[in-house]
């Protein structure tokens, strides 16, 4: 079983990440699968991050968190947020197979980002899992 996405799907994913996240000031937005593959990567024009390494680590981090959630008696923790001095990371589950990874700086509020991420996840589900909106 492999995952194949066509040009139309990938264009829609790119447009959603770009218009909803990059346009409000996110530095890098990355859609990945839970195996650590990069599906789509969008940045603000400065290609400063190694997205393949980030995807491998993000998938591992999320999987580890999911396992911890189960041990703690939760089905899953659906998001992870790491705050740094200048850069912050937000990692959110899109579906069982996909994750959304975002890097942003302190100019953006977490509240706004969460709203925008929720919108993007809705868009992505419609593209990746077409039946999910029904």
């Amino acid at each position: 079983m492999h995952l194949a996405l066509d040009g139309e799907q990938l264009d829609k994913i790119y447009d959603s990440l770009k218009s909803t996240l990059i346009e409000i000031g996110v530095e890098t937005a990355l859609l990945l699968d839970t195996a650590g593959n990069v599906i789509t990567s969008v940045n603000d024009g400065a290609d400063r991050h190694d997205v393949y390494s980030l995807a491998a680590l993000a998938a591992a981090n999320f999987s580890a968190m999911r396992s911890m959630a189960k041990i703690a008696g939760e089905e899953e923790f659906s998001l992870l947020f790491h705050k740094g001095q200048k850069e912050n990371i937000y990692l959110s589950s899109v579906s069982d197979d996909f994750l959304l990874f975002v890097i942003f700086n302190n100019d953006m509020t977490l509240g706004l980002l969460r709203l925008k991420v929720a919108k993007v996840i809705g868009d992505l589900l419609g593209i990746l899992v077409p039946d999910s909106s029904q």
Partner: protein
Amino acid sequence: MAFINLKEKLIQAKIVYYGPGKCGKTTNLEYIHNKCREQINSKMVTIKTQGDRTLFFDFFPFDIGKIEGYDVKIQLYTVPGQVKYNSTRRLVLKGVDGIVFVADSAEDRRNANVISLKNLQENLALYKKNIFEIPLVMQYNKRDLAKEGVPILDIKTLEKDLNEDLKVPSFEASAVEGDNVVNTLIKAISATMASLEKELK
């Protein structure tokens, strides 16, 4: 689960180096990372314990060029070999497309090899994958130990213990010296790509 980007004609597939603790999985990846710099644009990611043992995985992506018009990027991972890290080992196996099983040739690691292979079979089964069907290459590592007078298992014994039923390609290797490290990887990549091609048809 390989990912195929039909727009950019890019395939990403995952090969995992598996085996008992201290068998040389990380050393394999370190050798490849040093030797094949042109095809690797990333630093090697490692998550280690304080004692320099793999805690979660080592990782880097490896560009192998075009196959059937598609650029192919192989994601190389190791797992932690120590028995106690089975939960993280399982996580790394998620979405695996091909495996290199690194066995330790040292005589006193005979049982550890067998236990690790059995563990691989069990962990693959959790993802509904069959060890007899997944692309797999066997590497009998640390053949160089014989030169230092360390007792090593002969190939016949290793084949009988680990490969009698599987009957997969196998290599005698020394990851420290680089012997057959690249050949093992090439075989694993070709087996993985052949399997992928078959599934896509």
